[in-house]
């Protein structure tokens, strides 16, 4: 199955999921998703920045430029209250969807 197709519907959920634990900059967000998914979700970052900017526009994230501890200025993203509500709602929806898919596929495989 083309993982990028799966990723399309879950982009916001993945980003909000890693940002609810603290602010990160773009590269870190991509790395954190990769680490947490045990490198299963690693389609490249072409999708990441448009998704970050869209979430920022929607008010789910706030971004600010700051000097890094060791490196240069970076654009840090922080989840907002609205972003947290969006994450909760999407998590519930995703769980329901995943459960439904499992039920359907279990019947087929069983």
């Amino acid at each position, binding site marked *: 199955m083309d993982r990028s197709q799966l990723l399309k519907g879950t982009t916001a959920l993945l980003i909000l999921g890693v940002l609810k634990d603290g602010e990160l900059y*773009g590269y870190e967000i991509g790395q954190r998703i990769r680490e947490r998914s045990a490198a299963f979700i690693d389609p490249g970052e072409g999708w990441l920045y448009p998704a970050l900017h869209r979430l920022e*526009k929607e008010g789910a994230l706030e971004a600010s430029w700051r000097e890094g501890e060791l490196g240069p200025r970076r654009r840090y993203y922080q989840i907002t209250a609205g972003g947290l509500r969006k994450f909760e709602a999407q998590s519930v929806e995703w769980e329901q969807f995943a459960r439904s898919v499992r039920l359907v596929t279990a019947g087929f495989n069983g």
Partner: protein
Amino acid sequence: MAEPTTESELFLQAVGQSLPFGDRERLEILEELRQHLGDCFTASVDGGMDPAEAERAAVGRLGPPERLADELTRARREPRRLLAAAGAGVWGAVRGGIWGGLLGFCIVMVAAVAWNPAMNAAVRYLGVQWGQGGWDPASNSLLGLVVLACAAFTAGRVTTPVVAARAAFGARLVRRVTVPLGAAVLLWYVTLIWSGALSWPAVVALLSVPLWWIAGAWHTGSPWLRVPRRLAGGLLLVLAVSIVASLVVGPASPPARLLIDPSLVESIQSFDRIGAPVPAEFAKWGFGGVSAGGYVGLSVDVADRGLLTGWSDLRVEAWKGTGAAYYGGPDPNETAPFLTGPVVWSAAGTWPDGSLIWSSSFPWPPNAATLSGGLALNHWPGVSFAWVAITGVAPDGRRHLLAQPSGFQVVFGGTALDWFEAILAGR
């Protein structure tokens, strides 16, 4: 941290070229992507990858630059930006128009400075004579329209990228709106609203204004012209050459052929084509003419209204003249006046509205009166000079001049639509 080099910069350059945002917004996006590429590159090199391969991989993970730019553009698009884009577009057009207008004004001024020594040189060294009929008022319109065309071009050039940046739409998409919208507004303005002295060159310049907008608004790159430095240099060069030329050439002495023998003038004029000579009893009285805003008024003072008993079809009439020369006469190809109008009687020495034509100190005879009439001559594109006369048909059946015809420079005045209506009407 290791710095990415050429491939990353080329990638970022390609992304930047496809982002329709303003400089600040675009640079922030590119800076974020630059940091990302740097992080990817460093991580790969630290992991043992060859630097060139690491850079290629970092760039490859972001996908094609145009697609990334397109998705970033869409991600940042929102309705309130469209409203801001409309406002920014109007302001951009005004700002660009002012800037272009100033540029056009400089061009016209330099051209005006260069014109004089060039004409003097032409007269002195080539024997060419220019502008015998004086400065055509439509030429002033032409100069103004050059300024307007420059303003339209730069206004269009600024508007498309400014709207694209504010709306977060690609400039190529935005110009599908800015080009026809601006052209339609300008077409409406130049055909129906702009009004002034017109000639064919001025009409062409006027109708070209929307095309200048199209040329400017079609441009999708940076709104600011790269040429001004070159253009400014060129203008300064022309200015310097003109000043030197005016010192070297000096004023042109009037050529001998401008000095016309008055008897020759009379024979050229042949006013008898308008009517038989002025009767002697009228010739000793005054006649006058006024011209303002394309309207010409003519009057003839008559010592005794009774002198015109038996006369018929008294009228004021205008004949097309030859060129724009005061010593010319009615055009030999014309067989009739192009315009006629009624005449009215009024108290001697006054216009019909009671205002004085001449000094009221004349000892007017008891039956003296003034015959006057007016014509609007500014609606004839084909006429640049007109001879206007008051005539009437005498009891002998011949049309006579009641006063010597007066020559007037004629220029069409009105909108472009008026111009074409006049052309279609055969004027």
